[in-house]
């Protein structure tokens, strides 16, 4: 591989990391509260609200049902509004984030569901408010599950970011398509795949480590 190819690879890796890190953090920041809302508004839960729950659930389900490649194109006006442009790496962060939020919300809700209801009851019996129950009981108890879920989302974002080439987002996937596939450069294709595999292994290993650290049940 030429020096030029190495530079391309490095540039693409940086773009992928940037997209995944930015869309990952943003989607956790927005998706986890949404997941908490889904959890607490369910029937029989601490802030039961049937209407809110139904509305939130439909929005989340709608978000999850749109294929990413279509979502990316469909929300171009929003992307332009937020980033001032509809193409490029930064622009790709908007559809990646929007696509990840509903997944984050559902995974967070699932992690919260794993917390035994008895703990919520115990907190209620101590006079905890719904906010205190979320912050002091549910989130710390669900933390290993949340970390596990967020690891899955991060890995998914790596593969979604490969599609960002469609709007000029760059990244490893884009490099692979343009050089490996369109120009029949097998070496670059192989290098891209190896870097992607290494990246995913790294994310998974970090996630597992963090989960083990917080999981006091083992």
């Amino acid at each position, binding site marked *: 591989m030429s020096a030029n190819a190495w530079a391309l690879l490095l540039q693409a890796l940086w773009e992928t990391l940037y997209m995944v890190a930015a869309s990952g953090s943003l989607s956790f920041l927005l998706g986890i509260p949404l997941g908490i809302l889904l959890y607490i508004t369910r029937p029989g839960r601490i802030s039961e609200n049937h209407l809110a729950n139904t509305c939130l659930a439909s929005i989340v389900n709608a978000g999850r049902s749109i294929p990413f490649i279509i979502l990316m194109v469909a929300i171009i006006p929003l992307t332009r509004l937020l980033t001032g442009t509809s193409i490029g790496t930064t622009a790709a962060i908007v559809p990646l984030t929007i696509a990840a939020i509903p997944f984050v919300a559902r995974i967070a809700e699932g992690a919260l569901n794993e917390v*035994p209801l*008895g*703990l919520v*009851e*115990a*907190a*209620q*019996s*101590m*006079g*905890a*408010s719904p906010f*205190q129950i979320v912050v*002091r*009981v549910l989130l*710390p*108890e669900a*933390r290993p599950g949340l970390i596990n879920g967020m690891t899955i989302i991060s890995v998914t974002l790596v593969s979604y970011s490969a599609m960002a080439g469609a709007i000029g987002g760059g990244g490893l996937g884009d490099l692979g398509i343009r050089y490996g596939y369109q120009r029949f450069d097998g070496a670059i294709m192989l290098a891209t795949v190896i870097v992607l595999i290494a990246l995913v292994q790294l994310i998974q290993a970090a996630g597992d480590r963090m989960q083990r650290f*917080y999981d*006091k*049940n*083992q």
Partner: protein
Amino acid sequence: MIELKQLTKTFVSDGGNVTALNNVSLYVPRGKIYGVIGSSGAGKSTLIRCVNLLETPSSGAVIVDGQDLMQLSKKALRQARHTMGMIFQHFNLLSSRTVFDNIALPLKLTEQSKVAIEATVAPLLTLTGLEDKRNHYPTQLSGGQKQRVAIARALASKPQVLLCDEATSALDPQTTSSILALLKDINRKLKITILMITHEMDVVKSICDQVAILSQGKLVEENTVEEFFVNPKTALARKFVRSATHEKPVSEIEHHLKQKPISGSRPVVRITFVGDTTNDPLITQTARACNVDFVVLQADIESVGNKRLGFLMVEILGDEQATKTALEYLKARLKVEVLGYVC
């Protein structure tokens, strides 16, 4: 201290309504240990969950320390809950927190300072015998230790009332008695009123002052524990008493028994000894005075509260006149029930 007035709780569902509590009224005096006993599905859990309104009663009133809890706003109810501790069958400890942090939780909820938390939690660790477990996580503890943590946590907010929801049902007999001893100790030292529900008569026998039986959502019988053991009024109460005194059910010997005496038959009687009479040699005295003999079928002596209670099932051997005199002799001194006659 705790007063439940005509409490009714109906669960409404598509499959039909279930009345878990039906017009239950009871009063728990300050500083007492009050036990509610009943079989599975009798409504015990619903009852205790109504006391701190984890379950909202369909009708009736819940008065704790003079406050009608059902009239309170959500915020005031949370305040009131700080004065009530609760422990559960499955402990409900936070797995992500250490023993110390679990016990500190109620104090963190009221935003107390680190110093104040340390000052409250440290003595509780001592009281519950957990000093060396301070930085352990719940999974590293045994069931009994977990329940001790839960008790310490319930006491952290210095409550007036402790609610125990089947607190010993998941524990082995030895651990159960150590937890019960701890509860009794807490009741005495801290003057905390305890309301406990259980399906184990042994629990009631060892620490309760008063007891009530719940059956199919209704309060069937209520009494001091001693009276309850000596003079159970309902069939259900008798069943519970016999389970605690490890007596075989009468039905097991019943098919040998005849209701009426016939010539040559011998009476089978159940004798209850209360308090000092357990120390008196009444059986041998009777045997000598009335010229009869006794065959012991079952016997047991129990401590109930501070009193000793004895139960004895005997067959009386002797001629007709002597047997009659012996029965009268015994009846004058003890509680005697003639269960039937054998040939």
